[in-house]
């Protein structure tokens, strides 16, 4: 156990940061209390730096390269999320204190909110460190539990608070249901294999095949975790919760639990391995993931076209994006090049998705309007009309992020989607590619509505104004710059995501000698695991 400390430094940093935030946030002095965001940012920066240096390929990890990619990814996108989420809590309270009311530590939620923010990110990181079922369960719960509270805290004003409370309760109960399902699955997995450790499980599956009990456990685990990634059939909460939570919080929900869930599913199915002549998961799991992927993207996209609320639309779009990513998991590590590696495609897509989706929410969070006599968030797509004219920077950021979400070339989202396409084609899944293509086409309809409203239509409707939190606009600009710049410089990140997706038993990374890969892929699992070489650049 103690040797794992070497891989846990990012989490330890986050833990220290979270504790510090908790203390600072409760300080009676306003000047000190205001530093919570800064402390969070510094913590995340350190965690990202430490995360990059995480050593790879410990013997207990089923995906040995995952940590050096996933941890910095979570920390960096976490930084972006911090920009978007800041100013969510305590603004009315601070104003009241400025106006002369005495400081009441019971009425400020800043400390809880920011430390939970860090705890949740820490949970997501811990998912990538997980070497066994218990750890994975605890990590997943650590990701989710703070978010239930954060959703409730994020509401602003009386109406906003009512809605966020409703969202929080809904999110909590369904989340608990999801947790119960995957916990049951984990128990069955243990029952079927006699071990909780992923590497031992994968050896067991390789040696003895997958017993029905273990298979049932795997199916339940996947279904339960699909709550975290908002995949069909556990997607029902998404739109309501995203709408009820503040925009920054919705951005958080759309990335952090999703990343944790995606990583968990990857880890879980990696124990089964993509075996056989055509390198697929066992039939049942394969069909299950296929159905979930297709249903998720289709349901998400179709329902998104029906929305008039931009937050609900983004919620359904985030469902659809989960469907796209599941395609990569279904395909598996492929035959040795980046273009055929479905897992690498998922890793890279998580990065693209994190940037562009957070950017879209950041623009929404930067704006507000009056509703029923209270300050409320921008809600309708119509509120965004003429944004490019009234606020050119925000408007164009929104346009760029939306086009990127649509997968429009030559912006980041396109380069995220192409590896998913190529890897699915490489494994011969033509039907799946057709679904991907058609869904991307459906998606064009609703993303384009937002683009058209912001870019082409004249300003109209209820006046909107800036939310008064400059960091949110900064987050939007950074994300918009990211979707352009990363498209030009994506090669390094693609390489990193490829290393992150290395599985035990398959050697990846020799572009120069593709012919040897077939031999490696067929090698028995333990041998290859021992022979696995590290390539850290």
């Amino acid at each position, binding site marked *: 156990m103690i040797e794992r400390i070497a891989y846990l430094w990012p989490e330890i940093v986050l833990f220290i940061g979270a504790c510090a935030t908790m203390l600072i946030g409760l300080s009676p002095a306003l000047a000190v209390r205001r530093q919570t965001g800064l402390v969070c940012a510094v913590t995340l920066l350190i965690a990202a730096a430490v995360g990059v240096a995480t050593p790879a390929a410990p013997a207990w990890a089923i995906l040995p390269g995952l940590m050096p990619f996933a941890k910095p990814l979570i920390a960096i996108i976490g930084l972006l999320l911090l920009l978007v989420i800041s100013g969510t809590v305590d603004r009315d309270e601070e104003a009241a204190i400025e106006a002369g009311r005495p400081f009441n530590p019971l009425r400020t939620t800043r400390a809880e909110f920011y430390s939970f923010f860090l705890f949740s990110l820490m949970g997501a990181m811990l998912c990538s460190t997980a070497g066994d079922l218990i750890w994975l369960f605890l990590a997943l719960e650590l990701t989710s539990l703070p978010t239930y509270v954060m959703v409730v805290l994020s509401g602003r004003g009386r109406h906003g608070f009512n809605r966020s409370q409703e969202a929080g309760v809904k999110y909590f109960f369904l989340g608990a249901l999801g947790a119960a399902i995957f916990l049951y699955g984990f128990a069955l997995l243990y029952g079927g294999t006699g071990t909780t450790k992923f590497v031992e499980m994968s050896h067991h599956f390789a040696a003895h095949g997958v017993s029905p009990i273990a298979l049932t456990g795997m199916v339940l685990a996947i279904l339960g975790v699909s709550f975290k990634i908002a995949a069909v059939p556990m997607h029902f909460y998404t739109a309501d919760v995203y709408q009820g939570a503040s925009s920054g919080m919705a951005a958080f929900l759309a990335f952090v639990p999703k990343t944790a869930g995606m990583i968990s599913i990857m880890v879980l199915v990696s124990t089964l391995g993509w075996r056989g002549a055509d390198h697929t998961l066992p039939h049942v799991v394969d069909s299950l993931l296929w159905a979930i992927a297709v249903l998720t993207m289709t349901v998400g996209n179709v329902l998104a076209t029906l929305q008039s609320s931009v937050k609900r639309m983004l919620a359904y779009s985030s469902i659809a994006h989960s469907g796209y990513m599941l395609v990569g998991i279904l395909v598996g590590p492929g035959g040795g090049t980046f273009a055929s590696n479905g897992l690498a495609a998922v890793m890279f897509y998580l990065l693209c998705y994190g940037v562009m989706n957070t950017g879209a929410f950041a623009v929404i969070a930067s704006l507000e309007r009056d509703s029923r006599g209270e300050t409320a968030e921008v809600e309708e797509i119509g509120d965004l009309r003429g944004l490019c004219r009234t606020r050119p920077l925000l408007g164009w950021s929104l346009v760029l992020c939306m086009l990127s979400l649509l997968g429009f070339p*030559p912006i980041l989202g396109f380069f995220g989607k192409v590896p998913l396409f*190529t890897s699915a084609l490489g494994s011969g899944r033509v039907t799946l590619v057709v679904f991907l293509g058609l869904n991307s086409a459906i998606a064009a*309809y609703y993303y384009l509505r937002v683009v058209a409203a912001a870019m*082409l239509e004249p300003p109209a409707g209820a006046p909107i104004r800036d939310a008064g939190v400059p960091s949110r606009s900064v987050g939007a600009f950074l994300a918009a710059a990211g979707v352009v710049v990363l498209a030009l410089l994506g*090669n390094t990140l693609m390489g990193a995501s490829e290393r992150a997706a290395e599985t035990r038993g398959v050697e990846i990374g020799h572009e120069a000698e*593709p012919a040897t890969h077939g031999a490696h892929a067929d090698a028995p699992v333990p041998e290859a695991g021992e022979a696995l070489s590290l390539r850290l650049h």
Partner: protein
Amino acid sequence: MTLALLMLVPLLTALVVLCAPASRARLVALTGTLLALVIAGFALMAFDWNYSAHPGQLGLSLAWLPKLGLNFALGVDSIALWLIALTALLGPLCVLGSWTAITENQRTFFAWLLVLQAAMTGVFAARDLVLFYICFEFTLIPMYVLISVFGSTNRRKAAIKFFLFTFTGSLIALAGLLYVVWFTKRYSGAWSFDIAILTDWAHRMSGPEQGLVLLAMLAGFAVKVPLFPVHTWLPLAHTEAPTAGSVILAGVLLKLGTYAIYRFVLPFAPAAVVAYAPAIAVLCIIGIIYAGLICWVQTDVKKLVAYSSVSHLGFCVLGLVALNSVGLTGSVLYMINHGLSTGALFFLVGFMYERYHTRSMRELGGLASKMPIWATFMVFFAMASVGLPGLNGFVSEFLCMLGTFQADKSWGSGMPGATWGVLGPWFAAFAATGVIIAAMYLLYMVGRMCFGPLVEPGGHGGHGAHAGHSGHAAHEPEGALPADLTAREVGVLLPLAALCLGLGLFPTPLMNSIAEPISQTVRLVQAASGGVSPVEHAASDETVPVLAEVSR
């Protein structure tokens, strides 16, 4: 490097346009497009015509995302170069043609127009499949903005329909293209998006694979052309688009579809093309006749020209699926000629619309007495479009049909000049009715618009130039246009007219310059589909210069 400049110059000009004061926008745009035209002229000179089939001339290659196999690789053969030259030529003409038509948001308009030019150049210049796709898709955004901001009443719907149709189609095409890449990877071991490498391998695909790839690619490219069942976005987009948008749409954007069919569908899936050619040809013929008949009953001049595009592009694709040198030559010529003559027709309609703010033939007539210069050009370009011998339309249309006629395996094999193919006289016969229909509707339109008693919409009166002048001033405060074309407008039309005449009288140099890449493609298709003997090759290559002589 030249090609990169041809993309960079419009892009940088677009940036300058955005930063320049609004009153100078059009001047900056004109300078930029003229500069691009000059560079295109240099490109034509620098091109080595002895190796006209070599696909990598004037090119460069930069690694973009090597992990994905994506290179920023440019290079042209003679066909692509001619189409780039056409694009570069239409650039300044579009700017000049929109000089007074666009009064608001000039910067936006010209910037997007320039971006569009860069993207279209990129489509023709791309030597990397993904780069091609990126440019192919990227043309949608500028066109979408041009239509939905600067279009007429129904513009929003037209723009959305245009975007969704083409975007959906090209996603399916992307899947097909990527499948080819995968096939190449599996059999050659190398993951590459290089179009030349893919062309070498793709035709080894099995029949059913080729069929699927062909259908996927056609799903994208046929929408762009557009072929019969998926053409519905085009009339709407054309009618709603601003003049320059229509000109670019007809002149170049539609050619992206036919060019892509030539560049990808024929060499990637030759056996499937042979199998599906009759079906595609039937769709073309339905489109030719059906769109022609719609033209006949049109009262909106712009819609008429738009539908005539559908009809004409049917000939263009028909020539492609004739799969012999004659047909392909005709088709490539058609791409250029249609860009010239239909582009000019859209300019003419636009100039008239600027004066009368209506396009309805019910409200207009006998304009020759009031706008003699306009009417002269109208008659000239309508004739070019109909295919009057001596003008450019004739050469290409005739070659397309001749190619179709000769492309017969059984019936024509005993005839001189008959070449291998799967179409035949019957296809040509039905397509030929399209020529007659085209003559009917274009002549009817010209007769109605130019000759007969003068009819003008209310507010213009019938008292010559001055009345038109004052009626117009209400719409445009900064100074109305004279009744007939201005020097600027004549300047837009003259180069097009000169080229129509030039290419009509002396098509041979152009035909010779594209003969080599075309015969290569034909050889590839025929060899891969296994239906040809070397003798027939020789025959098919012979016919081209002979025909050129005939057409003179």
